[in-house]
C-alpha cells in the first residue's frame, strides 16, 4: 500500500462516496445541527474526533479481540466502544465549550447511535481495510461529513434571508436544498472507485 492509495481513500470518502450525500447516512445531525455555521463546525469537529478514534479502535477490536469466531458480537462491541468515546467527548466539550455543549444538545449523545459513526467501522470491516486504511477511511468519512454539514449550514444561514414562499419556509426548503446538494455531489461519481 503506497501513499497514493491512502490519498484515494481520502478523496473517495470525502467527495465520491460522501457519507451524507452518497451513502445517505448521518442525516439526523445533518438536518438538526445545520442551523448556524458555528454549531456545524463544532459538530463536525466532534464527529471527526469520534469517528477517527472509533474506526481505529473498532479495527483493533475486530482484528484481535473478535476474530472470525466472535463475529456476531461485532455490532454490539462497536456500539460499546463508540459509546465510551462519545461519553469522553461529551465531557471534554462540556468542559471546554459549554455553549457548544448546550447547542449540540441531544445531538452529542446521539453520535453514539449515529448511523454514520457505526456505519464507517462496519464498512471498514466489509472492505477489509488494514489499520492505517481504517483510520484514513474513518477520518476521510468524518471530513466529508463535516464539509457537507458546514456547506449546508452556510446555505441555511443564507436561506434565513431569502424570499422563500411561506409554505416552504424552514425545514421544507432545507430538504429541497439538501436534495439539490446531493445531486451536485453525484457529479463526483466514478472519479475514484
Amino acid at each position: 500500500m503506497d501513499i497514493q492509495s491512502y490519498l484515494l481513500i481520502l478523496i473517495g470518502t470525502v467527495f465520491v462516496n460522501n457519507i451524507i450525500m452518497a451513502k445517505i447516512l448521518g442525516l439526523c445531525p445533518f438536518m438538526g445541527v445545520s442551523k448556524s455555521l458555528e454549531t456545524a463546525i463544532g459538530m463536525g469537529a466532534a464527529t471527526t474526533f469520534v469517528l477517527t478514534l472509533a474506526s481505529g479502535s473498532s479495527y483493533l477490536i475486530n482484528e484481535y479481540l473478535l476474530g472470525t469466531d466472535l463475529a456476531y458480537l461485532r455490532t454490539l462491541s462497536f456500539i460499546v466502544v463508540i459509546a465510551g468515546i462519545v461519553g469522553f467527548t461529551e465531557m471534554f466539550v462540556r468542559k471546554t465549550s459549554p455553549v457548544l455543549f448546550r447547542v449540540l444538545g441531544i445531538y452529542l449523545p446521539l453520535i453514539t447511535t449515529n448511523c454514520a459513526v457505526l456505519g464507517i467501522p462496519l464498512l471498514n470491516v466489509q472492505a477489509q481495510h488494514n489499520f492505517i486504511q481504517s483510520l484514513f477511511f474513518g477520518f476521510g468519512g468524518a471530513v466529508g461529513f463535516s464539509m457537507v454539514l458546514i456547506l449546508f449550514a452556510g446555505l441555511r444561514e443564507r436561506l434565513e434571508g431569502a424570499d422563500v414562499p411561506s409554505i416552504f419556509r424552514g425545514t421544507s426548503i432545507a430538504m429541497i436544498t439538501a436534495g439539490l446538494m446531493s445531486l451536485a455531489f453525484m457529479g463526483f461519481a466514478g472519479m475514484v472507485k
Partner: protein
Amino acid sequence: MAGLAIFLGAALGFAAVRFKVQEDPIVEQIDAILPQTQCGQCGFPGCKPYATAIANGEAEINQCPPGGEDGIHKLAELLGVEFKPLNDEHGEPKPKAVAVIDEATCIGCTLCIQACPVDAILGAAKQMHTVIAQECTGCELCIAPCPVDCISMDTIQEAVATWKWKYPVVQMKVRA
C-alpha cells in the same frame, strides 16, 4: 466483552473527575440576554433567578415580556431550542417607560424605595421622593406598594437622539 466494558467504565470515570465542570456559565450567558428590568413578570424574583431557572430547565424561555420577541429569539438561539411566542400569562411587551412620582401627593413613606430593585428612587422618610429617570428600568414594582397611588408610568417619547431608521418599506414591481 466484559473486560472491554470494565476498561471503558474506568476510562469514563477518570474523565468525569478530570473534566469536572465547576459552575454552569450558561446562567451568565442567559442573564446577559435578559433585559435586567428585574420586574419579576416571569414569576421569578429577578433576572438572575429566571436565568438560573432556564438553565436548569425549570422555566420556559418565553416568560419575559420586556425582552420581547427579540429576547426569546436570542435565548432560543443560545440554547438551541425552538422559538416560542411570548406567553401572555406573564404580560405583554410595552413601550419603554419610566416611573414618575407625583411629588405633591407623595407622603414620604419610603415603601417605593424599598421596592425598587435598582435603587432608582431617591428620598428619605417623610421627605418627598423622586425617580432618577436614567436609572429607572420601568419595572413598575414601585406602583403597587405606594399607599397614595402617586406613581405613574411615563412612556419614553421618541426624540432626535433616540430615533431609529425604520426597516425600509420597498415597493416591489407588480407584474403586468
